[in-house]
């Protein structure tokens, strides 16, 4: 009973520690993001005025002063930071400097494109990676295995903007099968999705292959083999499950690279989406939009990784206990 209580306390403590860590990281992220735009050159008041009165030529100083008052532009750095953060937490993300439309609206109009691209390329890439690595661990060292390894190495070194251009050259220019740039029809998504999927396939094949190989030589798999369980059943029922957890962790770690890939691919194919939105916002110095998008990317990364950590804890309760005993005292008691 006391054992259970103490475990409960330690679990709560571990969760609390993790949550407080998460809050610190979120604060750090907002601080870095805000700092990036704060020190940017140029008069922000003039930019806001331009957005509000798109037709006006030059602004009287009263208007600019009014805007500075309204957006706390004359206040010291930390006041501005907390003003912005407070609004952000409340869900007030401001209006775009360029179009005076609420940032959230612009974002929602563009996110579907990105989601479609990410989802389709993840689906293609993961399925391809699974098949390739399964074939390659079937007979390590065989021709198929070498082919998979070579493909994975090339994929890891391939600049995906170049791959995109090559695909356009082949399928759009030479063969004229698929449209090259832009969005519109479902066919438009094929080439971008293939480009991104190739990178996903490469990075995941490498990892899955290692995990499968490790799982294959695990002692309990050997035991199954000795008991006469067929190779096929071993692979589908045991090895796969064994490799799932580490593979999932690695997929989580690659979220950042996936987001990066999405941006590059969107820009290469001149598609709409969050990546193109960010590039456009950066070029036109649309600070509310930049702040929102950068925060979005960072939050997605942090949240996905926190989720994966929780998932790992759920699968492996020892890990949360390890976190607790990860102090000098714990080591000494053990020795």
């Amino acid at each position, binding site marked *: 009973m006391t054992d259970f209580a103490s475990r409960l306390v330690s679990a709560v403590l571990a969760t609390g520690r993790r949550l407080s860590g998460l809050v610190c990281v979120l604060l750090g992220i907002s601080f*870095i993001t805000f700092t990036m*735009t704060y020190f940017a050159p140029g008069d922000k008041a003039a930019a806001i005025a331009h957005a509000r009165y798109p037709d006006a030529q030059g602004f009287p100083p009263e208007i600019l002063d009014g805007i500075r008052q309204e957006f706390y532009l004359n206040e010291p750095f930390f006041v501005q930071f907390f003003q912005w953060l407070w609004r952000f937490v409340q869900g007030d993300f401001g209006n775009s400097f360029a179009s005076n439309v609420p940032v959230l609206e612009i974002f929602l109009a563009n996110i579907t494109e990105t989601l479609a691209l990410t989802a389709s390329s993840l689906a293609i890439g993961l399925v391809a990676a699974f098949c390739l690595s399964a074939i390659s661990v079937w007979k390590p060292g065989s021709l198929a295995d070498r082919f998979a390894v070579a493909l994975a*190495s090339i994929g890891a070194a391939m600049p995906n903007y170049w791959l995109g251009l090559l695909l356009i050259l082949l399928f759009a220019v030479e063969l004229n099968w698929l449209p090259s740039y832009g969005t519109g029809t479902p066919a438009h998504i094929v080439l971008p999705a293939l480009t991104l999927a190739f990178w996903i396939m490469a990075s995941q094949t490498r990892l899955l292959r290692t995990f499968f190989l490790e799982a294959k030589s695990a002692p309990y798999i050997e035991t199954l083999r000795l008991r006469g369980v067929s190779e096929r059943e071993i692979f589908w029922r045991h090895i796969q499950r064994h490799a799932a957890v580490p593979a999932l962790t690695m997929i989580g770690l690659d979220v950042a690279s996936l987001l990066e890939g999405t941006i590059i691919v969107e820009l290469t194919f001149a598609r709409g989406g969050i990546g193109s939105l960010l590039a456009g916002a950066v070029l036109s110095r649309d600070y509310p939009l930049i702040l929102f998008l950068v925060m979005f990317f960072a939050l997605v990364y942090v949240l996905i990784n926190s989720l994966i950590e929780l998932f790992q804890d759920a699968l492996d309760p020892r890990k949360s206990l390890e976190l607790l005993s990860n102090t000098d005292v714990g080591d000494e008691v053990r020795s």
Partner: protein
Amino acid sequence: MTVASDLSLTEEANLKQKQHGKNLDRFLKNIGLGLVISGAIAAAGFFFTPYAPNAPDFLNRLSPPSSEHWFGTDQLGRDVATRLLYGGVWSVGLAFLITLIGAITGTLVGLAAGHFGRFADITLMRMTDSFFAFPELVAAVTIAGVLGPSTANMVLALILVGWMKFARLVRGLSIDLAHRDFITQAKLNDLPSWLILWRHILPNIGASLLVLWTNSWSRSILSISGLSFLGFGVQPPNAEWGAMLLSGKAYLQTAPHLMIFPGLAILVTVLTINLMGDQLRDLVDSRSTISE
């Protein structure tokens, strides 16, 4: 005094050492040979090329690969092969510099987090986690874009987002090492902590650092050309592989060689560095069996 079994054990250890030494020798020879060959080709290129990277030749625009212009010429009649050579200096050299600075910064942060107590550890690692949340490209595009697209701003951006992996690795390894017996011995022998860091911790994490460093070197090459391709990095007329791709993109139909060769250069370079890193990692793994 004869110590028979001691001697036989020594011989065995000697044998292992020799074997290992042989592997290392062969590996270093391979790398050395590769470097010498590519260095020689590049130097010969710089020496023999009759063209300047930025000299236009309007009579010879967009000409396909020929015996005169091996990789053809671009929209201003500049020799693509020559520009690739000079572009390599930008891409590979800048990436080298950026990762070197990142590695040094990250190592310092990681060591500080691992050795200056709990408070420093928590603060520094929360900071590292915060920086980690920004995908390299997002941060680089934002910084480079907000400050204005230029080579210097791109370098600044990539340095700002490139040090965290080193910090995490160094912190993890050095905390792991701190519990080893030989560190305890050094402490009991009254060694000051800077000397412990210098003599005992740094040499033992050096190999892993080197592996991570080759890895981020190749990634950095991809980032630099990616950013330049998007227009946020090295600006034309400077010959950089990504920037060359960007200007070649417009001539996709008429002169595809403008876009094929720079991409190939990036692919081959990154692949080479990655393979080098893989080999290095295998070597480190095979050696770490003893210290584990």
